[in-house]
Each structure stands twice: as C-alpha cells, then as structure tokens.
C-alpha cells in the first residue's frame, strides 16, 4: 500500500543576495493514512519551508523547487498540477495551520467570514449554510460563545482562541491531511497543552493524517507515531517515536533529547547543543552537523554520511551511528 503523501527528493532553494539558500535539500518522507508524523529540528533547519513546499506556497521567485522533487498526494505530483487543480487540493485535501495565529488571520475580516470563505472556496454552500457550518466548527474547536464570537475580529481574541479559529478554518472542508507548523510555539504553556489535546482529539474524529512540526522533541513523545529529525535542510534521522526516544542514533537527535526536560530526572541540567544552525547559504561540507558535533571523526567534514539502518529499524544519516547487527 502506498502512503497518502509521498515526498521525494524535495529540494527548495531561494535566490538571495548572498547566494543560493538551499533551505530544503533532498528531503524524502512518507505520511501514511491516519498517522501523525513529527518533524523536529532547531530554528532555521527548513521545517517551515518543507511544510510550505508541500502545498507549493513558496513564492517563485525567489523560491525554486529542484528538478527531481516530487510531492505525491494520492499518486498525483502536486508540483506538476495546474494552479486551478492545485487549489482543489489546498484547504480541501491538505490544510495547514501556522505558528503565529495573530498574523495568520486577516485583521480586517471577522473570523466568521474567514471561515465561511474557506468553506465556500470548495463547496456549493450558500452563505447562510456556510455560516451555520462555521458556528458548528467553532463549537467543535471549543470557542465558548460561537454564535457571538463569529462576528469578532481576530484582535478581539486571545492567542489560544485565534489558534482554535485557525484549526476550525483548516477543518472546514474535512481535509485528509493537516499540516501543523509549530501551532503551539507562540502560546502559553497551559494553552499549549489544550491546543495539543484538541488537535489529537480532532485528528481521531476526522480520521486525518497529521504532519506536526515543532522544535520541541518533548512535545512529540505524546502525540507522534513517527518522528523525522531535520538539520540543515536534510532529514538526519527518522523512525518510530519509541525508537527515536529510546535509542537515538544521530548525535543531533541525542542533543535535542538532552534539551528536553525530563519527568524522571527533574534536577538534571538541561544541556542544549553548543553553537547555532548555520545559514542556508553556507552549509558546512560533509555532514552539515559536523562543526557542532561532539562525536565527529575525520571523514564527517568531507563526506556526506550514508543512510544507516539501526537496530531499532530506523534510519540515521551519520558516520558514527551503529548499523543493525554490528554491536
């Protein structure tokens, strides 16, 4: 059985003044029916660009997709669709929510009209039917007084409520895939948990697949089925959520895990990864993580690491990762 969404060799680059920024470089992954895939990495790793590329929301120019890149949804390559056919996918089959609910909503339109607009973009509902449906959706995402709040403007709501509106909008056409790009990063911790619960609840109810993007590996523990770790525009490790958490093979993943506060050892110090993500115009040679890696060996700085399949059946792109059956 083929996956619902197959991303193959996705490369997205930007022409900038300081050269070509290869924000996403040869990324491949699958999203199966009903699964939640977590995409994790530090700021600047290319997560957002990956997400936007799936719906071809990158402006061309300055953006540009690689020649061999394929985004297959139900067997159709989205990168080759006409603008009109692509619109049939956007919002209807694959929907998206963003990091900043405040700026992602149009400040001069009521939240109701923005949801109605999403409904009517893909259906034949009348304005009244669409409005009724919008109220239902707002109820569904837990807006307290949907009948009244539907006429509110975004600035009249809190960040958490705004993100609920974004979710309602995304669900308005019952999409098969929801891409959530750091949907809780801009919110308070308590609100974060509520939004996560809501998302996972709705995922089950709507039978959606979710691509969940975050820079916080800890968030994924409770919600993801599989995890892909991204660094420097590439996926460096990918596998079952338990495998990633219990036997991380890539030093970068290990670093991310150390940065997660842990229930069992609350006093343990949080250790991040020294240094910062380089800019997309100047990726290091060889393994892009090598300048920050504590376990690097000589060849790391010159040769691109191969895919290593580890004991726990997941893939790591690292020269020092231990392949299955070798330990």
């Amino acid at each position, binding site marked *: 059985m083929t996956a619902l969404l197959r991303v193959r060799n996705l490369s997205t680059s930007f022409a900038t003044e300081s050269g070509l920024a290869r924000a996403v470089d040869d990324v491949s992954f699958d999203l199966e029916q009903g699964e939640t895939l977590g995409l994790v990495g530090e700021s600047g790793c290319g997560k957002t660009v990956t997400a936007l590329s799936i719906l071809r929301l990158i402006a061309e120019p300055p953006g540009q997709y690689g020649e061999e890149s394929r985004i297959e949804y139900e067997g159709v390559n989205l990168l080759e669709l006409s603008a009109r056919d692509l*619109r049939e996918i956007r919002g209807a089959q694959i929907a998206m929510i963003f990091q900043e609910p405040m700026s992602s909503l149009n400040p*001069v339109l009521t939240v109701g009209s923005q949801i109605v607009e999403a409904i009517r*973009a893909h259906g034949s509902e009348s304005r009244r039917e669409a409005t009724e449906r919008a109220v239902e959706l707002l109820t569904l995402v837990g807006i307290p007084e949907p009948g009244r709040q539907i006429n509110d403007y975004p600035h009249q709501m809190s960040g958490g409520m705004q993100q609920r509106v974004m979710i309602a909008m995304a669900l308005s056409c019952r999409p098969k895939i929801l891409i959530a790009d750091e949907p809780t990063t801009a919110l308070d911790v308590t609100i974060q948990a509520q939004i996560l619960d809501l998302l996972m609840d709705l995922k089950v109810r709507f039978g959606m697949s979710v691509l969940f993007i975050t820079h916080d590996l800890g968030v994924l523990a409770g919600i993801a089925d599989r995890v892909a770790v991204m660094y420097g525009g590439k996926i460096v490790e990918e596998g079952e959520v338990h495998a990633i958490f219990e036997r991380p093979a890539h030093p970068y993943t290990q670093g991310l895990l150390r940065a997660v506060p842990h229930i069992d050892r609350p006093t343990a110090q949080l250790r991040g990864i020294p240094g910062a993500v380089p800019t997309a115009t100047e990726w290091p040679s060889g393994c892009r993580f090598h300048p920050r890696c504590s376990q690097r060996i000589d060849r790391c700085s010159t040769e691109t690491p191969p895919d290593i399949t580890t004991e726990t059946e997941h893939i790591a792109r690292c020269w020092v990762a231990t392949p299955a059956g070798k330990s």
Partner: protein
Amino acid sequence: MTRFLVRRILHSVAIVFIVATITFLLVHIAPGDPATAQFRDRPVSPEIVAQYRRDWGLDRPLYQQYLSYLSNIARGNLGQSFSLNRPVSEVVLQALPNTVFLAVAALGISFAVGIVIGTAQGATPNSRFDHTLTAATLAVFSMPIFWFGLMMMLVFGQWLGWFPVSGATSPVYSALPFLGRVADRLHHLVLPALTLGLGGSAVVARFHRAEIAEAFAQDFIRTARAKGLSERDVVLRHALRNALLPAITMLGLSLPVLFSGAVLVEHVFAWHGMGLAAFDAVARRDYNVVTAIALFGAIMVVIGNVVADLAYRRVDPRTRAS
C-alpha cells in the same frame, strides 16, 4: 473616540491659528500696507491715505491689529477686497462651488485609477507589466501639471475637438434645459478633471503599489492561499482590503497637492474657481483675497485630514471602539 476627536480638533484649531499667524506676519513684514496697496495706482493726498488707515485700524499697535484679525477670522470676516470692492468672503464663496466640483471629480479619478493600477502592479511585483506601469506612472508624475493640461487641451480640445477647452460652462448655458445643463457642465469638466485626476493618480498608484506589496508579504495572505482561494480572491478580498486602509489616510494627505494642482489647472482651462480667483487677485495685488484663499485652502485641508482620520478609525476594526 470622543477624546480622540477632541484632541484632533484642538490640534486642527492650533494649525489654523498658526496658518493665520503666518499670513498676518507675511502681510506685515512685506513692504507697504493695505493703504498703500489700495492707492497704489492712484495718486492721492497723504491725508486720504491717513484717513484710510484710521478707518481700517491700520494705525493701531500691531498686537491689536493681530487680535482683531484673529477675531475677524473666527467670525468669518475675511476683510474687504481692494480691487473688487466686495467682502472677500463673497469672492471666495462664489468661487468655491466650481473648485469643489473640480476637486471632487479629480480626487475620484485619481483614487479610482491609482488604486486599480497600484493593485495590478502590487499583485505582480517585478513583472514586466509592473515595470511598464511604474515607468508610466513616473512619466505622468514628472510632467508639470499645467503643461500636461496644455497638451490635453491641444490634443483632445483643439486637434480632435472632443471637449471644450475653457470655462466651466458654455455661453449658452443659461438657455439650456436642465439635462442639457448637466451635460454641458460634465462636458466642460472632462479635460480639467482628467488633467488634475490623472496627475494625482500617478502618486496614488506609486503609494498604493507599495501598500499592496506590503500586504502581500503578510502571513494572512499565505493562509488565504492555503485555504485554496483563487488568486483573484486573495488579491481583492485580502490584499486590497488591507491596503485600502492606508489609502484613506493618503486621501487626507493628498489634499494640499490637489489644491495646488487645482490652481494651475483652473488657470489653464479658465475654470472660475478659487485658484483662478487667487491668481487674478495676485495680478491686481489684492492680497486680502489671496491670503483669505490660502487660509481657506488650509482650513479645507485640515478638515479633510480630520475626516480622513475619523473615517480610518471607523473602517479599521482594530481602532474601532469595540
């Protein structure tokens, strides 16, 4: 809202007060005074001039003159026209309707045309289409408006003969039936309004293009596209709607330039409005009329700005009282 309104009105009164002070100072530091101006071309005895000074209070201390000038303005008394021997307010009010007619038509044209062009450009930034229109608006923007008017007059008035080239009405105006009068007025309005309006539209288009481009860089445009909206809806419902708000402010800010342009266009097309009245008064050195018109122009600009600000606050949900 009320507090805003009160502050805004006080601010406007302060501006008008300063404008009045400036005109008063200008009149008094200039060589001569109303008396010498009044009798400039007529040799009269010094006694008559002195009498005139006494009659008009020109022999009083400067501060008293200043206070009475201000209080006269506050009561709508703009003084006497030396050359026409009529109250200045009469001269101004008589010229007002024609100027308002021309200015409103031109404002309509400049915003309608400017916003369409700016939106089309902003929606396709850096395309060939965009560059062509940028060149076109730069060209219109760079033409002296009176020269543009002369060229319009030459081409559409004289060579093609489509429109009348001077005056606001034809000589037979009063003999025409009602609809004929309306048509006659509109016919005369075309060239002056197009000249003034197209000149303004270049400015509006340049401004609005930038606003649209800025709106396009916002996150909510990405959301709109992610919803599957057509590009047309993205432009019209999202980008344009947001970019129209600053255009309201622009409307207020463009008034001084509009009035300056109107003076020139009225002159080119012999359109009897305030600009032409001011120009005629300059030729006769009847500066009471000129200062009154300048003051009046400034007041209209200030009122226009307040109205634009209020409109902005009503239209923008973020500033509207909730």
